[in-house]
Structure formats: C-alpha cells, structure tokens
C-alpha cells in the first residue's frame, strides 16, 4: 500500500488548493460537531458513561490474554473458528485460505478499517477474488479507486455531483440519460446494484465494533443495514477485527455503545446494532454456514505496557477528527496512510514507523479538542507529544528546528544573557515595525510572514523596564526583587 505520510506537507498543499475537497469539508465542519454536542448534552450521565467506558477498556487491556482466550473458546463452542494473525500478511493469508476453500470468486464487504489497514481489497483482487464494498461511502470510493478519508464517513471528501459522474462512468449497463439529480436516485441506484451483489456473493467480510468474550459474539453497528446483508446472505462470514476490540460482557458492550454513536454522529444509537454468534444453527431461519474471526495484532500488543497503551481504548468513533482544526482544514487523505486525524496521528507512527509517520504527531496545535470529546478519554495530545519525544531522542526531527530549539534553550537557561538578547531583539524588531507596529517581512520568519504580518514589540522588554523601576504605567515604586 502506498504511504504518502512522509510527504504530508506536499499533501497539505494539494488539499488546501483542492476546491472540491474544500467544498466537501465545509459541509463537515459544524455538522458532526453540533450533533455530538447536542447528543452529549441530552444525556445527563454522559460524562459518567465516558469514565465507565474508559474503565472497561482499561480493565480489558490489563487482562487481554484472558479475554481473548475466552472469546476464542466461546466462538469455537458455537461452531465458529478464530484465526490468530500476528501481522497484516498473516491476516490476508487466513482470509484467502477461507475464500479458496469455498471456491469464492467474489466477496461482499461491510465497512472495515482493519481491511484497509491490511490492504485487503488489492490483495483479494490480485488473488482473483472480487471484493465488493457495500457501505455506500466505501462503494463510492471503491469506484473512485480511493482510500477512506474518514474512519466512519469514508467518502466525506466527495461531493454529490462527483458521485453522479462516477455512477454514470461505472454503471454503463444503465441508460445514460437516466435522472440522477436527486440524492435519493443515487441511493436507489446503489441499492439496486448492491442487492445483486449480496445475493450472488460467496463470502461476506465485516469488521467488528466489539468482540464479546463471554458469548463469543462479534458486533457491528451500521446505519445502512448493508452489514447485515453482508454477513447473513453468503455461505461464509469472515469477521476481521483487531484484538483490542474485545470487551468482557454484553453489559460492557452496551455501556460503550451508549457513548459510541453519540460521539460519532450524534445519534443515540446507530440504526443497526448486529450481533453474530457463530454460524447458522439447526432451526435458524438464516445465517452463514461458516463463521470465522480473523484476529489481528499487527503491533498492537507491543503498545501494551508502553506510553501508548491508552490508545488501545480507541473505539473508532471519529470524534477526534471531526473536532480537529487540522483535519477540518486538510481532510483525511493528506495524512497519507489509513488512519487520519488525531487518532491517526498516534497510530500511524506505531504502524509505519516514526521515521515515516513523524509528521503527523507534529502537525497538531495541541488545542486539546480531541481529548475533550474522546468518549474513551484518550489523552491524544499527550500521546502525540510522546511521539515527538521519540523523534527527538532518535534525532529524527529536522536539523534546523533542532538547532534553533537548542540555541533557544541554551539562552533560556542563562537569564542574564537572555535579558540582554531579548532587549536587543525587542529594540530591533520595534525599529523594524515603525509606526505601523507590524512588519510584513521578517528575515528567517518567512513561514510566518508569508501568510500574516508580524506584530512588532513595544520597544523595551518588561523585565528591563521593571528592573529600571518602572511600575504599572510608570508612576509606581516597584523594583527588582
């Protein structure tokens, strides 16, 4: 899978100049934010539920081995099978084996970010199995040959007129002059096309929002019902999930469900919450003949016991990116791999290495809005700062930035010299600013003055004036102390 995270700055330049993208993003701003705020305000116990949700996942992470084994035992008891995958490649291998065993030629897919993480679609295509995304947003970006730009709204970067063009380009068996002006007509067309795919598919692949240990159940939440058809109609259902999705009990799942949709879309609950426990049993009216769970680690267990462990509480609601000023400005593709926004800025260096992913934890103002809304109370800015520490320790940060920082810190530790330097700087900049009190050009500060003026100092530093006996507005008696 192509990783463009190292070119984050170039990606950003492109994103900011992309008028279609900016138009789409302007609809995002405020929409998710207002709905989440209203949903949280409408539930008096929302903050207490966040604590509860955090505690549940913390408990799981402390006892992950026990719950994973319990989950496997209960899946097996019900006639399903758990496949352990340490790496993305192992997970792909398991899925291909299952597909080959049943002679699958196509696979319908519910929305899954783990599928993106392991690059499943490209792999299945290379292996002669046609993957068909059935979530509308995923279907659209599959047609466009793109990646999701948001973890719960994968096509949030696309405008309706672009979808209309894509449908006319790809659905060539339909009359070219058909009306597609109304959003409903786009939906109806997608629904009709996907219905055929559901009925003819050999294997259905879904992700999981939760894996419930006590019952061996995988759980998905969707708003379109496509997940249900994906997992009920084909003969084989494969769940692809990462191991931190585990919760001990159904009660724990329902606790976390109460914060999930509210944080994600502002809904009290997603439209569909679907629980799958094993294959079709005798007497069941429907369900798959085979039920497989591919459990992916892919470096997650390495995070346990480190400063990044809290990140494994993430339930993929997307609230952090919805509220992030950087994400709102550039969208998800600029982040260059699978996971965008603040959660992606913590996860990406873990998965692709901080050498390649280091831009992301740096591209944050640390405004803290992500942490403020995270239903699992993950201290996202703190985690990003930990990545910056790793970079600094390993001398990966840009040499110029490092030199400037070191020079400044050297000075800041020498108060006398520091005062001399700041007095000269204040004076020099004051002269530069002149009567306008600002400058549009400052040597070495082009990154600032390209976009904004630099307000210039008032003349003398505070400390110099204070030492000289100025107090308040000049009439006082204060002095150095």
């Amino acid at each position, binding site marked *: 899978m192509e990783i463009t995270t190292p070119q984050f700055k170039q990606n950003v330049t492109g994103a900011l100049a992309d008028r279609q993208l900016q138009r789409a993003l302007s609809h995002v701003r405020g929409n998710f934010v207002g709905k989440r705020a209203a949903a949280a305000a409408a539930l008096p116990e929302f903050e207490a539920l966040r604590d509860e949700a955090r505690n549940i996942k913390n408990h799981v992470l402390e006892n992950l081995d026990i719950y994973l084994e319990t989950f496997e035992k209960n899946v097996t008891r019900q006639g399903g099978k758990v496949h352990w995958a340490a790496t993305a490649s192992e997970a792909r291998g398991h899925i291909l084996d299952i597909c080959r065993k049943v002679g699958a030629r196509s696979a319908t897919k519910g929305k899954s970010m783990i599928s993106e993480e392991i690059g499943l679609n490209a792999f299945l295509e290379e292996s002669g199995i046609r993957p068909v995304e059935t979530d509308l947003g995923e279907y659209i970006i599959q047609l466009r040959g793109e990646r999701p730009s948001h973890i719960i709204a994968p096509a949030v970067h696309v405008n309706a007129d672009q979808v209309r063009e894509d449908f006319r380009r790809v659905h060539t068996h339909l009359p070219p002059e058909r009306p597609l002006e109304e959003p409903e007509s786009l939906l109806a067309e997608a629904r009709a096309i996907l219905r055929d795919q559901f009925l003819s598919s050999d294997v259905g692949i879904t992700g999981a929002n939760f894996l419930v240990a006590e019952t061996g159940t995988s759980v998905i939440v969707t708003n379109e019902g496509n997940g249900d058809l994906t997992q009920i109609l084909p003969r084989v259902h494969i769940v692809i999930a990462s191991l931190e999705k585990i919760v001990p009990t159904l009660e724990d799942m329902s606790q976390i469900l109460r914060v999930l949709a509210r944080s994600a879309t502002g809904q009290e609950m997603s439209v569909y919450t679907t629980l799958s426990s094993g294959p079709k049993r005798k007497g069941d009216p429907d369900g798959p003949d085979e039920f497989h769970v591919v459990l992916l680690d892919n470096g997650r267990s390495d995070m346990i016991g480190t400063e990044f462990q809290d990140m494994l509480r993430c339930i993929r609601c997307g609230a952090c990116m919805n509220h992030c000023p950087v994400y709102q400005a550039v969208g998800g593709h600029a982040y260059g791999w699978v996971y965008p926004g603040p959660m992606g800025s913590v996860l990406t260096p873990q998965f692709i290495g901080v050498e390649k992913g280091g831009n992301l934890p740096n591209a944050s103002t640390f405004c803290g809005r992500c942490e403020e809304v995270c239903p699992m109370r993950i201290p996202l800015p703190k985690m990003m*700062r930990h990545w910056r520490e790793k970079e600094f320790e390993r001398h990966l940060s840009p040499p110029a*930035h490092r030199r400037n920082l070191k020079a400044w810190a050297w000075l800041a530790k020498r108060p006398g010299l520091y005062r001399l330097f700041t007095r000269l700087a204040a004076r020099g900049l004051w002269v530069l600013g002149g009567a306008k009190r600002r400058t549009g050009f400052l040597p070495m500060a082009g*990154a600032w003055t390209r976009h904004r003026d630099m307000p*210039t100092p008032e003349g003398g530093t505070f400390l110099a004036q204070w030492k000289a006996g100025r107090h*308040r507005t000049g009439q006082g008696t204060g002095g150095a102390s």
Partner: protein
Amino acid sequence: MSEPVRIGLFVTCLVDLFRPTVGFAAVKLLEEAGCEVHVPVSQTCCGQPAWNSGDRADTADIARQVIAAFEGFDHIVAPSGSCAGMLSKHYPELFAGDAQWEARAVAFAGKVHELVSFLTDVMGLERVAARLDARVTYHDSCSGLRELGIAEQPRKLLATVEGLELAEMKNSNVCCGFGGTFAVKYSDVSNAIVSEKAATIDATEADLLLAGDLGCLLNMAGKLRRNGSKTEVRHVAEVLAGMTDAPPIGGKA
C-alpha cells in the same frame, strides 16, 4: 489587617518581549485586588517550546529554574492560560517519578494560576473599574479553556467594563491555528485555520478582539492586519486594567 497575598508574576516570554503593557496591566490588576506583586528577574520562559518538541531534558532544566525562582510565593500568576497550564499541569507530569523534584513540582503547580481566573476565583474580584466604548469579541485560547477551565471568568469581568459591548464570535472555542512552533512548521495549515478564525471575527463586526494568550493574539492580529480587517487586537488584561492607551497589538487597523 492580614498579610497581603504575595504574588510571583510569571510575565511569560512573549509578554516580556512583545507586549510589556500586558505585564504592567497584570501588576495593576493584582495590586488593585490587594496583592503584593513580585517579579523575579531571573525568569525567562516556561519551557513549553522544548516540551512540545519532545526535548524533555531542556524542559526539565528550565522548569527547575522556574520552580526555584517562584516556589516561595503564595501564588504564581501568569497572564497566559498556556504558560499557566505548562507550569501547573505539565511540570508535575514532567517530573513524575523524580524523587528529588516531583513533590516540589506538585507543590509549586498547586499555586499557579492564570491571571483573570486568579482575580475572580481566588481574589473574589467581582468587577473592574475600567471604561471602554467598544464592541468587543473574545477568543477562548485552547490551553486556558481546556486545561484550566477558563471561559466564564473573563466574560464576567468584561461585563463590568463600562461602555463595553460583548459580541460573541461563532466557535470562539476553536483553535486559532497558532500552536507555538506549529505556526511556522506547518504554516499553510496554520494559515487555513487562522483564516477561518479571522472570518468568524470579522462576522461579529467587533472593534476589538480580546484573548488571554499573547501567542494566539500575535497570530490573529497578524492575520487580521494582513487582511485589512477593521478589528483591532488586545490582551484582555489591558482592557480590564483600563490600559488601552498604547497602540493595539500589530498596530491600528
């Protein structure tokens, strides 16, 4: 009469260099509230640039210097939510597990306050004796808002400034795009964010933009002046202290 409250004023490096008026306004407000203000001249910076760049060693050197200079005061007050947040929230985190410094950092942190919230929440200030005939809008700087819970305090005091009309901007709690070194490291993204902020400020048709953090103010003032906006920019302390004679930040509109 009881002993006056002894304050160590942490001026902040930006106020010291760019906007001494804010420091003098802080002194005035604190003294009028009955405090005795001291300014250790050995202070330089809180260390935040190093901390946010992942440089723990330099941060710790600077933090030890700050703690040693200020821990003797009853309270440490800074006219910045960002620097006060660094001193009160991040120093204890920085020294966690440090046998020699953790306890000192925690004790020190417990005495650190941002200026406006200190005046209202600790000194019980209800009103200020200032007058300004202006339509004003207030930006909630992120660290003050989210690390220290500062939102109502400045609005409460601004409401007592005679002649002042507060016109809230949309999304006043959304970042201005400054983020310290972020503004130069990712200047295009920063510009996109501050452009959005400038648009919401302009929409209020305010004469004056106020906030409690000079970093954010320099960023927003720089953008507003570049855009030719009619809104001028000051630190909230200048207005509360009635010290609005000096030219605004970045000059007049």
